[in-house]
């Protein structure tokens, strides 16, 4: 592995973080809001700063009444939704690769799937297959390690072995016994049994693996995040253990490159509930560039090892990154994300999705759903000084500059944006010159199907497309998009 990990270094980082957290007074603010949003009062979770900059999520948690039971339920729903997304993607890919649709039908929603890693953004099977291969190599095992924000314990490790960019075998390494309590018949078959398509284990085996000792630092696997600082360190520590499990469990796949990808419950839930692909790509940017962009001394997400292609793409400004990812995976379109599981199985995730759709992702600061091209140009709150050119590839509109100056004290000459520490600005700033989308603008959405729209969608363009007969399904999307552009007087 590229770097090591040590308890001492982690402790130093954690102590420095606590000092800064307290110096800034965020500890005081957390104590005031935890009664509304925290399932475990009195515990400061990892990512407490992120809990505080997403008021839409805080509002939803407050509405739900975030009890320990609700939190445990969220962990379960989050797990099964991730896992079944890949199963669904395998089915869609098998169908589409066997009988490829004509090019004009490629972006219809029933042909899109979560073949991405993580299964968080929709893509066409062909593209997903090739990009997985480009990102991870011809043969790769990608395992996701999930950690509770409050207990700092690992509670599941699950992922896939990929051959030539295609997931060929699901592998559940470990699941905490409390999470298994939520399993239904379908889950028991998927995670507690093994066959040629997947490898699981009994409840006892899956739970027991979390108690295995990591011998470098002599801690149980489940406890590693308690003594190691952030997702990259968890990834480095768990990587060796997962490699050993693979030799025992999946020796026939041992030739593939192994990736460990680590994330917490809350961050993973935000990623999983992103309303649209442009939104997820924006979060991915924050997740892997947390320190530089959000000014926090930890990362929100990790790949160990980090795929080279992603490292290269992360050198781009946020807006360019989001646009390139959208072009790469979705031909420049923007998908409204669907859930793989039904509402009866994941009621909390449905409630979250519907609330985010009703309120908008940056409620109450931004009244509505963020159009993809505005999302790509979002300026986040940051605990360090940032610069407009880190985020935007073209200068802000007149109205956006005015907002940046009045709300963020941005310097128009240098582009510099002072930190949260200086201005108390906790909110994301979005270009006010483009009107937010409203839920009523969309044709009815089936959250198990999703929709697809042009990346440059606006209220006006959506209205024309819908009036002309577009239903969000992707059928003839190019025709309707061009027709709307023509009606709006836009040149091709």
């Amino acid at each position, binding site marked *: 592995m590229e770097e090591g990990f040590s308890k001492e270094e982690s402790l130093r980082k954690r102590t420095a973080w606590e000092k800064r957290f307290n*110096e*800034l*007074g*965020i500890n*005081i*603010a957390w104590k*005031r*809001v935890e*009664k*509304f949003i925290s399932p475990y009062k009195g515990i400061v979770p990892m990512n407490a700063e992120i809990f*505080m900059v997403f*008021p839409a999520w*805080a*509002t939803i948690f407050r509405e739900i009444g975030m009890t320990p039971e609700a939190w445990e339920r969220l962990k379960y729903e989050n797990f099964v939704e991730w896992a079944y997304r890949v199963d669904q993607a395998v089915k869609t890919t098998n169908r589409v690769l066997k009988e490829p649709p004509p090019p004009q039908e490629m972006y219809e929603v029933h042909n899109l799937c979560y073949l991405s890693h993580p299964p968080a953004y929709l893509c066409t099977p062909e593209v997903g297959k090739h990009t997985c291969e480009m990102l991870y190599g011809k043969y790769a095992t990608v395992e996701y390690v999930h950690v509770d924000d409050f207990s700092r314990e690992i509670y599941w490790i699950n992922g896939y072995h990929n051959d030539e960019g295609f997931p060929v075998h699901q592998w559940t390494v470990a699941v905490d016994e409390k999470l298994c309590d939520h399993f239904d018949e379908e889950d028991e078959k998927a995670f507690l049994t093994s066959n040629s398509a997947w490898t699981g284990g009994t409840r006892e085996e899956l739970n027991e693996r979390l108690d295995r000792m990591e011998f470098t630092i002599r801690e149980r696997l489940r406890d590693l995040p308690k003594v190691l600082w952030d997702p990259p360190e968890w990834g480095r520590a768990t990587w060796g253990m997962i490699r050993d499990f693979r030799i025992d469990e999946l020796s026939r796949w041992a030739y593939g490159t192994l990736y460990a990808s680590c994330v917490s419950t809350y961050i993973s839930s935000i990623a999983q509930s992103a309303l649209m692909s442009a939104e997820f790509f924006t979060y991915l940017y924050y997740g892997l560039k947390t320190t530089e962009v959000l000014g926090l001394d930890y990362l929100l997400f990790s790949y160990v090892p980090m795929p080279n292609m992603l490292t290269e793409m992360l050198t781009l400004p946020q807006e360019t990154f989001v646009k390139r990812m959208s072009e790469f995976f979705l031909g420049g379109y923007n998908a409204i994300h669907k859930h793989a599981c039904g509402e009866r199985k994941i009621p909390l995730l449905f409630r979250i999705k519907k609330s985010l759709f009703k309120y908008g992702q940056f409620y*109450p*600061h931004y009244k509505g759903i963020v159009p993809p091209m505005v999302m790509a140009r979002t300026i986040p709150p940051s605990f360090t000084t940032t610069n407009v050119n880190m985020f935007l590839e073209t200068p802000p509109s007149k109205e956006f500059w005015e907002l940046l100056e009045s709300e963020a004290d941005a310097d128009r000459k240098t582009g510099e944006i002072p930190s*949260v*520490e*200086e*201005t*108390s600005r*906790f*909110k994301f700033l979005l270009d006010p010159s483009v009107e937010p989308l409203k839920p009523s603008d969309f044709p009815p959405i089936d959250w198990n199907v999703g929709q697809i729209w042009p990346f440059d969608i606006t209220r006006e363009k959506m209205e024309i497309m819908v009036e002309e007969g577009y239903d969000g399904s992707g059928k003839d999307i190019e025709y309707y998009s061009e027709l709307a552009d023509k009606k709006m007087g836009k040149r091709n």
Partner: protein
Amino acid sequence: MALPLTREWFESILRELDSKSCLGFGDESVWASITGLLSRLSKDAVARIEDELTREGMNKENFRRMREEDRLDLVVNFKGGKIEEFRLAQPSDTPTIRISCDYESLEKLWRGEEDIVWMVLMARIKIRGKLKNFTRRIDEYTNLISALVSNTDVN
């Protein structure tokens, strides 16, 4: 309780704040823009305020303009944690902290129905200034709001 902008109103707020801690404000100058208060005044209350402003030799036009915009801009200047001055804001003021909010939010805070940090996160109350100073002065902000609402008669 007194009608806003009257001498009695300024004095009663000052009296209440004198008895509470404002130490955290040090030498700050706080500018507060409050919306949704003046529009709630009855015709009779407006007439009484205008009478008092005339008696005090103050410009009624300022009050009319504020009512049109439904915005009351106040300034509180502190020195060593003690209130030195409390008055209507002037364009020449150079505050170190700016607060903007609607009066209904202040009432909710005063009644204990909401938390000030929650309302700041939800942008119902906007406070511009250093983050650490805001969180360390939560009690002082609460005192300020409480004094304002508890002494204001909107009828």
